[in-house]
């Protein structure tokens, strides 16, 4: 990054003050609680109880069966049609779901719902839960603003009113849907955790105000809100990335000693690091490739920047990674007999290959299949066309990079001897070579994935979604990212204009809180020009001595690069909507945006312009939709592409304004602050309309929001 910075280091000093229990606070402070509650209430307000993407059926069936005490799917609780469903796998006459991590993490919510639905109707449990959440959020905002009595009373009455209205409007939700609801609760919590982690991360480096803006931005200004109620792996990945960034930032430097049961006094940083390895390892249980890539990326960044690589710390790290990977390996051994072959890589279930799904969803042994069905010839198998507008199939073939890379994983569980052959022929190896062989398509792929979607004639199967052009690019669904491009170009421009590559005052060192110094890219560029060899030799030392904020920037960039590489051969793809495969990088991008000096100046000096830009653009957007859409009468694909064009224009304008501000061509930050607000507002408008207008796939958990939207003619 060409942008310089000037972060402060006082939180580190504050941490040294003592190892009181407050050090282990989850939320950090009362504002953290408010960010968490508000994010959860916001994400929950547009929640639809329903299956948006078809392989969720298999994961929900996995959850229900795990709750009954077995990994095998003996009973199909949820199905779209009789027979197979995407994400269902058959091994040795038993059915399994494609991933179990998600199912197990959702178990507490499932058991909780089982208790609640014994005494209350599920639709009212959801409405009550959300209303009480609104009450808690209002009270907490009152605590933060030091007006608890007013906010407490008003919030309670408001929540009560919302609940009353919901009771009157509620449509039935069958109690049997508890499995799906539990998965959705897990996903919603993941979005709230993402907002909280971003708040704590940004507050750590740049104060609570920047933290709040980043936390609020995570929900309001990114596509996370849309995916909050879609229980895929993506929101979980985003939460993990956000938490990893925070723990990474908090564990640079030795930090205080804390007392841990059984271990005695340990450096807090070491505890956080091993927890981070546990977390990254657990991702493999949800999606093997993402887990391995995240673990590798984190390990690389961690070991390059760790303040200590003592034997004790390395053991802690290794133990953490092992603990995190244990459930993944155990599940694989149980299902496929192969510790590195997750259920997702086993053969997709097709009716007739040894298992039959009987009436009522009972799974019985059936006729053995006449030979192995080779999946490689049928990468889109199970991609049932849906009655809904967008619930495009998401079959094993195209969804998973692993299966996409090597469809040749036929045959039963293999012995260790076949392992090498298997690895070479199918998953990681084949996948890596696919990235290389498809490098020539980079301009086409990257343009359509990250810049402008439009109709992507090649590679994208529109037929699964009724030919609607609903797949947006990253810039179109996250115009906020324009600020990153602007800051980068602006920084370069500034240096070209001033002819100055090393900033004055860049001689500060880490201990006095100056961020530049040895670790800054400016100094680095200078040295590289003068002594290229020495600079390379001294690079590891520079990285290790850099300010924690810069080190965390490095991790954020590495996570982005890792995901972009991992999914490069698969994107663009159908049923992505907002490039959901790379959704986990959204918190990393929000963090990087919040770290830009220009953005921080906007938040610090002209916060009113930021809020005004957001509110005015949102009001203008709602009004424009209400006036223009009845006249245009756009089909869903046209509406999505209209949003895409507007968002792309906003993204470009934001990049331009930030460039000018960063380069010193514009001194006033009000313009940039307003542009940031507008970029957030157009995304809010997009994700809210996606949930309330364009993609209705279930019963609204909060019917009163649905009704208010109708009244406001959002559904023009």
């Amino acid at each position, binding site marked *: 990054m060409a942008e310089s910075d000037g972060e402060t280091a006082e939180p580190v000093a504050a941490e040294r003050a003592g190892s009181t229990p407050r050090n282990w606070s989850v939320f950090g402070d009362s504002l953290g609680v408010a960010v968490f509650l508000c994010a959860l209430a916001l994400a929950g307000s547009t929640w639809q109880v329903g299956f948006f993407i078809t392989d969720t059926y298999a994961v929900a069936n996995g959850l229900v069966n795990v709750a009954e005490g077995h990994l095998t799917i003996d009973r199909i609780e949820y199905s779209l049609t009789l027979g197979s469903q995407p994400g269902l796998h058959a091994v040795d006459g038993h059915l399994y779901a494609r991933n179990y991590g998600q199912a197990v993490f959702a178990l507490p919510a499932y058991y909780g719902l089982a208790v609640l639905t*014994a*005494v*209350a*109707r599920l639709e*009212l*449990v959801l409405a*009550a839960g959300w*209303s*009480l959440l609104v*009450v808690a959020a209002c*009270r907490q905002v009152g605590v933060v603003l030091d007006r*608890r*009595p*007013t*906010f*407490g*009373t008003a*919030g*309670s*009455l408001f*929540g*009560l009113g919302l*609940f009353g209205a919901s*009771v*009157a409007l*509620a*449509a*039935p939700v069958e109690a049997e849907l508890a499995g799906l609801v539990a998965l959705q609760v897990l996903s919603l919590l993941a979005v709230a955790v993402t907002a909280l982690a971003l708040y704590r991360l940004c507050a750590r480096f740049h104060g609570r105000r920047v933290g709040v803006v980043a936390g609020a931005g995570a929900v309001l200004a990114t596509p996370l809100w849309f995916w909050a109620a879609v229980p895929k792996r993506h929101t979980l990945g985003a939460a993990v990335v956000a938490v990893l960034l925070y723990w990474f930032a908090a564990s640079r430097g030795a930090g205080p000693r804390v007392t841990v049961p059984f271990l005695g006094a340990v450096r807090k940083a070491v505890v956080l690091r091993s927890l981070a390895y546990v977390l990254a390892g657990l991702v493999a249980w949800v999606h093997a490739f993402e887990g391995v890539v995240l673990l590798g990326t984190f390990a690389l960044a961690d070991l390059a920047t760790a303040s200590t690589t003592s034997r004790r710390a390395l053991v802690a790290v290794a133990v953490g990674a092992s603990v995190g990977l244990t459930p993944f390996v155990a599940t694989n051994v149980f299902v496929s007999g192969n510790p590195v072959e997750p259920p997702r890589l086993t053969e997709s279930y097709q009716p007739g290959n040894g298992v039959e799904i009987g009436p009522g969803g009972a799974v019985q042994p059936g006729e053995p299949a006449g030979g192995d069905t080779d999946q490689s010839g049928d990468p889109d198998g199970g991609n049932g066309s849906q009655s809904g*507008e967008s619930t495009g199939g998401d079959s094993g073939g195209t969804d998973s990079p692993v299966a996409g890379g090597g469809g040749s994983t036929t045959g039963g569980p293999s012995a260790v001897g076949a392992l090498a052959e298997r690895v070479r022929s199918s998953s990681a190896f084949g996948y890596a070579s696919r990235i290389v062989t498809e490098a020539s398509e980079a301009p086409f792929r990257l343009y359509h994935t990250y810049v*402008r*979607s*439009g*109709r992507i*004639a090649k590679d994208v199967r*529109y*037929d699964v979604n*009724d*030919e*609607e*052009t609903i797949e947006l690019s990253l810039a179109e669904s996250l115009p906020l990212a324009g600020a990153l491009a602007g800051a980068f170009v602006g920084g370069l421009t500034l240096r070209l204009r001033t002819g100055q590559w090393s900033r004055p005052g860049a001689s500060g060192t880490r201990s006095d809180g100056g961020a530049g110094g040895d670790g800054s890219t400016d100094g680095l560029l200078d040295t590289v020009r003068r002594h290229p060899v020495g600079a390379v030799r001294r690079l590891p030392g520079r990285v290790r001595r850099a300010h924690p904020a810069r080190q965390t920037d490095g991790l954020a960039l590495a996570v982005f690069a890792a995901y972009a590489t991992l999914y490069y051969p698969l994107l663009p793809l159908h049923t992505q909507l907002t490039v959901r495969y790379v959704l986990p990088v959204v918190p990393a991008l929000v963090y990087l945006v919040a770290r830009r000096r220009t953005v921080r100046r906007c938040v610090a000096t002209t916060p009113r312009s930021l809020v005004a830009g957001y509110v005015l653009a949102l009001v203008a957007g709602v009004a424009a939709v209400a006036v223009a859409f009845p006249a*245009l009468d*756009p*089909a*869903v*694909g*046209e509406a999505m*592409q*209209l949003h*895409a*064009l507007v968002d792309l224009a906003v993204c470009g304008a934001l990049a331009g304004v930030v460039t000018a501000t960063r380069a010193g061509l514009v001194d006033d930050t009000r313009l940039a602050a307003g542009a940031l607000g507008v970029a957030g507002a157009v995304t809010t408008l997009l994700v809210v309309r996606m949930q309330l207008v364009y993609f209705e796939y279930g019963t609204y958990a909060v019917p009163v929001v649905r009704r208010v939207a109708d009244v406001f003619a959002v559904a023009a």
Partner: protein
Amino acid sequence: MDASRIVTLLSVAVVLGTLVVTGPLVGGTDAGRASPELGEGTATVESVQLTGSPSFSPGRFGTGVVYLRIPDAAVEFASASGRSRLVYRVAVPALGFDRVGTASVDPGTTHRGVGMSDRAFAPDTLDRDRYRVNVTVRVQSFAVDRTVFHRNVTVEAGDG
């Protein structure tokens, strides 16, 4: 204990109380449950009008498809008793397209609109100059199923 805390606790108590009272343990009343959409009703239709004519036109904003634009159907009733529904069906047999939109008809309804979204087609799938589009409107309930409107429209694909 301050007033705001009392209000909050009361609100929580009311919410939880409502949950239990309406739940399966306490009688499990059906109050608030949405009534079923379809009944045994019937309706006499006075007129059916389409708000336009079906047509093909290119998708806008870079969608790169051709849309079959489907007009809404506006139905006037002479009378309506019981619960029934309108079934608005548009089909293009040559393209394998067949879609229905429905709207419920409550007792005493005098007019009701029913529509459905436009349908996108990849341009290369439209290989004819013109297509026949079948449009029907039915009144349907558990007691009746009556076609009240039927029209075959020939639509030019050329401008698509």
